């Protein structure tokens, strides 16, 4: 498919353009996706650099007059019940939430790709076993078990959350990859490679996998957004990131009790999360459109 696309474009414009160049070109036309990309870059930068620039420390407790202050010039987003600056905590929490989002998606992806690639390429018994296993994992209700795992595995670190989310997140990617491999392995270039004597592993990783990247990338982008919400849900229920380390989820949990008197505590983490996830969703959608092979006809 990548070859065909190059040929057409070469004919039309007299210039050899790779698949990725075309994807980029088409993505650029998608205004919302580009805006989302910019927004995400801003958010990521803010969360990484912000806490260093802030005059307040994340865990800096305020004096009793500073507790529960509505937004003001001194504290642009107000203070929480311990007098801590909400804006600083929001940015720091963003770091945590984003890191959890990216890492969990990445880990799930690694497992999912390995399982899907081998199942799809070799087929047969290996495929059946791996798919049965995937089906079982799919059939287990996620949230309850997430909670169990979160409470059982020792440690309160962020890594635990990442691990836990990844354990239940690799199955979708595995299925996608397996599907791609099942169809791609019938292509002639696979037969050609085998005829030359290329090893199976090399065929999988160097030949077929690059061609199946498109749906993986889309799934990963959308997955980051989804996992951020997952982490927030877990933290909200009390099983995610533990205080005092802020994350957008546990900030919301704290805010719950003060809902009536300090609404700003509810708005900020929520809106931050919402905009971030929305941006990921728009970006993922734009990527999906840009990489859709059918639109290349």
């Amino acid at each position: 498919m990548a070859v065909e696309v190059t040929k057409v474009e070469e004919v039309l414009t007299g210039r050899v353009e790779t698949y990725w160049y075309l994807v980029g070109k088409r993505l650029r036309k998608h205004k919302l996706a580009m805006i989302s990309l910019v927004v995400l870059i801003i958010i990521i930068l803010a969360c990484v650099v912000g806490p260093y620039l802030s005059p307040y420390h994340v865990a800096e407790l305020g004096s009793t007059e500073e507790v529960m202050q509505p937004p003001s010039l001194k504290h642009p987003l107000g203070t929480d019940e311990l007098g801590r600056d909400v804006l600083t905590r929001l940015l720091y929490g963003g770091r945590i939430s984003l890191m959890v989002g990216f890492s969990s998606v990445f880990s799930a992806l690694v497992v999912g790709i390995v399982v899907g690639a081998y199942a799809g390429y070799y087929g047969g018994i290996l495929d059946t076993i791996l798919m049965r296993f995937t089906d079982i994992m799919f059939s287990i209700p996620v949230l309850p078990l997430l909670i169990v795992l979160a409470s059982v595995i020792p440690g309160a670190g962020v890594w635990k959350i990442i691990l836990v989310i990844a354990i239940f997140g690799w199955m979708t990617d595995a299925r996608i990859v397996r599907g791609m491999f099942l169809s791609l392995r019938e292509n002639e270039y696979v037969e050609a490679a085998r005829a030359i004597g290329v090893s199976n592993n090399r065929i999988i990783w160097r030949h077929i996998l690059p061609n199946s990247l498109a749906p993986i990338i889309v799934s990963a982008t959308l997955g980051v957004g989804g996992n951020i919400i997952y982490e927030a849900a877990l933290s909200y229920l009390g099983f995610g990131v533990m205080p005092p380390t802020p994350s957008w989820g546990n900030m919301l949990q704290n805010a719950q009790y003060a809902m009536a008197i300090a609404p700003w505590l509810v708005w900020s983490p929520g809106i931050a999360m919402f905009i971030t996830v929305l941006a990921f969703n728009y970006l993922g959608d734009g990527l999906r459109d840009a990489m859709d092979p059918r639109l290349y006809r």
Partner: protein
Amino acid sequence: MERGEVLLDVRDLKTYFFTDDGVVKAVDGMSFTIHKGEVLGLVGESGCGKSVASMSIMQLVDVPGKIVGGEIIFKGEDLVKKTPEQMRKIRGAEIGMIFQEPMTSLNPVYTVGDQIMEAILVHQDVSEEEAKKKTIELLRLVGIPEPERRFNQYPHELSGGMRQRVMIAMAMSCNPDLLISDEATTALDVTIQAQILELMKDLQRKTGMAILFITHDLALVAEMANSVAVAYTGKIVEYGDVYSIFKRPRHPYTYGLLSSVPSLKTEKTKTPLPAIEGMVPNPYRMPSGCHFNPRCPFATERCRKEMPELAEIEPGHLVRCFHPVAVEKEANA
């Protein structure tokens, strides 16, 4: 050969596509006529506009395409000026169309019989009983064995050739005066292709309907058509009856196409198969003057500046070229 009266007269049809990257003049001043009961072969490579022309006749051109000029006179009336409702009544009833991919042209969730009956019921005022009987008759007519059983089958239960027969049955269900066949046999393998062509010829003889036979395959044209129109980049470059075109091609493009068909002569003399140099131009960047000039061995300065008009070189034989005589010399050499 005595030709019947004019059934379809396409005059200077222009259908343009307004895309983000520019305007594509898919059909840029095409003119041809089809007489009652005759088969016109519309030939050309991919991208020459023949499919767009057929969709234009049916008024099925989709956004971003639009018919921007010309007339399509069918039975004395201009189709371009018709309202969608009027056109709908003509489609399927007076003009039938079959497409290239029988696999995907039939709706997979309805039975074959249902889909044919639908065409009948929408245009004719008959009961379901009669429509069903007519459908089974049609299936029999197009050569499908056990039509009663096939009536209740789904498209995926039929082979490619049978599906195309179903398409033909569907297109003919209301006895149209004109059948448009858009590369209907391209996706079938050769033996089936021959059968379908036989069927079409047979039906044409029986019903006296005209066929607009669109294809890129010259051999098929020789077999099926009475007249031939050769299309290139949205225009007709040569037009005439099938014998004239094949025996005395006048346009360099037609000549090139015909020469590139392998024959026993080339096999014997082992001469390399002549191919037309170059490629079909980029629709966004058409060459100036005659669109064929970059590939034409006879091109002159004039060809690069001016676009020739369709002119009659012999009675009934039109060419769009400044030097058809040069081609004659070459052919006889």
